[in-house]
C-alpha cells in the first residue's frame, strides 16, 4: 500500500463512516469528517497543553506512544489518537492520585502472584520512573544527553525493549512495571471512549469495527456474519436516556 499522510488518513477514516444502512446514526459520519478535517488543520505543536506532564516528560511520553502504537495505513497511532492527552488527564486526576488503590502499609515485596505492592500512586510511579529513565539514558551516554526523543526509531524500540525486559531500577520503580503500566494505559487511551481524551475521532474503534457506546443489536444478532456499516458512537454523541425501555409494550429493539 502507498504511504499515506496522517491528514489523508484522518479524512479517509471520516468518510468511510458515511455508508448506507447506517443505523440510528443520522449525520454523524459527515460530522465526524468535518471534525477530523478541523482537527488536522489545527494540529497543535507537540508537548503543549499538558496539565500533568512537564514538557520534558511529555516529549518522552509522545515519543514512546508513537513506538508502542505507531501510525500506519492500518489505522491511527497512539499519538494521532490523543493517547498522551489521555495519560495526562488520568495521571493528573483521581486515578493518578490512587483511586481504588489500597494504600495501607506495611509495604513488603511480595511474590508475582500477589500483585502490585509498591507505595507509589500511578502519578508517583510515572514521575519517579520518568526521572529514572532520563538518568539511565544519561548514564548510558545515549543521544548526547538529548534524551529519548533524539534516538532513532529503532534505537527507541531497543530502549523500550530494555525497559520491558526488566532489571533496571527507575528511582524505585522496576522498569518492567513502568513499561507494563505505560503500555496498559496506552491501550486504554487508544480504545476508551473519546470523552476521556484519547481515541480521537473514534479512529481506533473505526479501525477494528467496534461500534462504541450506542448498542442495541436485537435485530442483527442472528443475522450471522452481517457487516455492520455505520459510524461508531461516543458517549458524548449519544442522546441521554435514549435506551430506556420501560414496560413490555415498548419493543426492546432497534
Amino acid at each position, binding site marked *: 500500500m502507498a504511504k499515506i499522510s496522517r491528514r489523508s488518513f484522518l479524512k479517509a477514516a471520516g468518510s468511510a463512516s458515511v455508508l448506507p444502512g447506517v443505523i440510528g446514526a443520522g449525520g454523524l459520519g459527515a460530522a465526524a469528517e468535518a471534525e477530523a478535517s478541523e482537527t488536522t488543520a489545527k494540529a497543535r505543536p507537540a508537548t503543549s497543553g499538558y496539565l500533568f506532564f512537564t514538557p520534558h516528560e511529555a516529549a518522552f511520553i509522545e515519543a514512546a506512544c508513537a*513506538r*508502542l*502504537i*505507531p501510525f*500506519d495505513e*492500518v*489505522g491511527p497511532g497512539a499519538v494521532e489518537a490523543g493517547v498522551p492527552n489521555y495519560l495526562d488527564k488520568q495521571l493528573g486526576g483521581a*486515578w493518578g492520585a490512587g*483511586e*481504588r*488503590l*489500597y*494504600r*495501607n502499609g506495611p509495604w*513488603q515485596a511480595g511474590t*508475582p*502472584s*500477589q*500483585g*502490585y505492592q509498591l507505595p507509589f500512586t500511578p502519578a508517583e510511579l510515572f514521575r519517579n520512573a520518568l526521572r529514572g529513565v532520563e538518568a539511565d539514558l544519561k548514564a548510558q551516554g545515549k543521544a548526547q544527553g538529548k534524551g529519548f526523543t533524539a534516538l532513532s526509531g529503532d534505537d527507541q*524500540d531497543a530502549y523500550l525493549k530494555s525497559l520491558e525486559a526488566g532489571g533496571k531500577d527507575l528511582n524505585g520503580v522496576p522498569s518492567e512495571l513502568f513499561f507494563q503500566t505505560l*503500555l496498559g494505559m496506552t*491501550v*486504554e487511551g487508544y*480504545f*476508551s*471512549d473519546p470523552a476521556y481524551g484519547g481515541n480521537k475521532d473514534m479512529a*481506533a474503534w473505526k479501525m*477494528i*469495527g*467496534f461500534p*462504541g*457506546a*450506542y*448498542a*442495541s*443489536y*436485537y435485530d*442483527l*444478532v*442472528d443475522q*450471522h*456474519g452481517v*457487516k455492520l456499516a455505520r459510524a461508531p*458512537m461516543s*458517549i458524548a454523541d*449519544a442522546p*441521554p*436516556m*435514549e*435506551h*430506556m*425501555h*420501560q*414496560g*413490555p409494550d*415498548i419493543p*426492546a*429493539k*432497534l
Partner: protein
Amino acid sequence: MAQRLKEVDVVVLGVGFVGSIVAKELAASGLKVVGLERGDPRDTVPDFQGPYVHDELRFAVRKALMQDNTREAVTFRNNAGQTALPVRRWESFLPGTGLGGAGVHWNGQTYRFQAADFILRSHVEERYGKGFADPELTIQDWGVSYADLEPHYDRFEYLLGTSGKAGNINGKRVEGGDPFEAPRARDYPTPPMKEHYAGAIFRKAANGLGYHPYPQPSSNLSQPYTNPEGLQLNTCVFCGFCERFACEHYAKSSPQTVILPVLLKNPNFELRTGCQVQRINLDSSGKKATGVTYIDAAGREFEQPAGLVISALFSFNNVRMLLLSGIGAPYDPATNKGVVGRNYAYQTMSSAQAFLDESININPFMASGASGTMINDFAGDSFDHAPHGFIGGSYIGAINTNGRPIEYHPVPPGTPKWGKGWKEAVARHYNHTVSMTIHGSSMPRRANYLDLDPTYKDAWGQPLLRMTFDFPQNDLKMAQFVTDRAVEIGNAMGARVVAGSPRKGPYTVTQYQTTHNTGGTVMGADPQTSVVNPYLQCWDVPNVFVIGASNFAHNASWNPTGTIGALVYWAIDALKSKYLKSPGALVQA
C-alpha cells in the same frame, strides 16, 4: 458510644439478591425487618441509564460498581509459609457493593448444579472407589440433596424469568437442552436467547464431534416476562455492556428488577444504606445473638437489637462477619480442626481462542452477559473420570459476552506485545475470533482457607480477611484435559490457529478469573465439618442464619448464582415452616 435503637424482629446484613429475597419473604410474613446495606441506594432510573453506563473504562476497567478496596480489601498468599499481602487492586475477583449487590452487575448466567454435586464424597466413592480422589481434597456431602432443592431452583428461575431450554423434564430427555442436567419439574420460564454467530459456529463444530450443545441459560431475557411478584422485565437487546455494568433496559434480572420494588413497598421493611456492620453481638452465653453493631456513612455508631440475624453477604464477608463476631471455631489447617474459613474454593478458569478467516464477521459486540452456546459433556460428572485421575470438570462454551476493545482484542500466540505487528494483528483478528470459556469446578483442599489477617486493617480498624489459596493438582489436571477438548472444537471450526490456555498454577490475584469465591461457612450434616446445618442455621448460634456461596462445600463446574437462589428459598422455607413456629436449633448437633 453506640446509640441503641429499638429492637426489630429481623436484621438482614447485605441487601443483594439473598438479602432482598429473604427480607421480602420475612416482611411479608408480618415480621419487622431492617436491611443494612453498606453501599449506596441505586435503581434502574436514574442510576443505570444510557449513555453513560456504556463506558468500558469506568465500569469494566476501573470497576466503578465494585467494593471500594481503599476501605476494605482482602489479603492473599498462595500458602501458609508466605506472608499475606493486600490485594491492592481488584483483578482476579471483583466483589460488588451497593443496593442489589453483585446482582446488579452480574452476567445473568443461571445454572443448576448436578445431583452428584450435593453428595460429592459419597458419589465419587461409589462411582470410582474410596481411594480415587486425591486425599488432600476435603470434599464432602452438602447435607441437602438435589431433590430437596429442585422446587427452590424452580422458584428462583421463575422469579428471574430465566431464558433457556430444558434437557430433562421429570426424567424425560428433551431434545435441544442439556442431556446431563438433573431432572427439572418444568421448562424454563422463557425460551432461549437468540443464538449469536460465535454460538452457531461452536454448535456446528461441537455437533460434528458428537457433543451436546445447548443454549446457555440466561437471566437477560429473550422476551418480556412478568414474574410471580408482578414485576415486568423486557427483552435483552444484546448491547454488549452487561457484566460489570448495570442494565438500563430492565432486561437483566437483578434485585432492582425482580424483587426490590415489592420489598421496598412493604411497611414492615426498612432499608438503611451506607451502614457498615462491625459485628453480630452475642449475649453472655455466646449462644444467642442480640443484634448487630454498625457504623453509618457519617461515622455514627448504632446498636440494632434483633431477634433473628441473617447474614446475606458476599461469601468473603459472611466468613469475615462470623470471625469478627466470634461465631464458630476458626479453621486451622495445621490440625484440620475448626470450621469457619474451611473449604474455601474458587473456579478453575481456562480458555481457548479460534482465529478464523477474515471473511467471517463474528461481531463480538452483539452480545449479552449470558448469551452463548455450550456443552456439559466434560462438566461435573457427565463423563467417566476413571481413566483420567481427577474429579470435577468444566463446561465449554462460546460464551461471547462483549466486544469492548480495551480488554477484548484477541491476537494469536507469537504476536508482538506492541508496535506495528501488534496493531496489525488486533485489526486483523478483532472481528474474526471465537473465544471459548472453559469454566471449571474447584475442589477444596486442606491447605486452602480463609481467616483474619494479623496485620492489615480496613478503614474502620478491623482486620481484613486473609485468603490462603492455590489450585489443587486435581483441578490443574482437569483444566488441561478439558482445554484439550476445547482446542479440538476450535480445530473443527476450521480455524487457522487455535490457542488453548489451560489454567496453570500458582494462583495469581493479578489476572481476572471469576468472582465465584465460595465456601468458608460450609453447610452440612456434621458440625465438625460445617458452620451451618442443612437449613443454613449456625450450629453454635441458632438465631443466626448465614446464606450465600459461602455455604458451598465445593464449587461445581457452573456459575453459582442459581444454586445460591435455590439455597435462599430452601432456607426461607425452613425459616417459615419450622423456625418461626418454634425458634431454636432446627437440627440437634
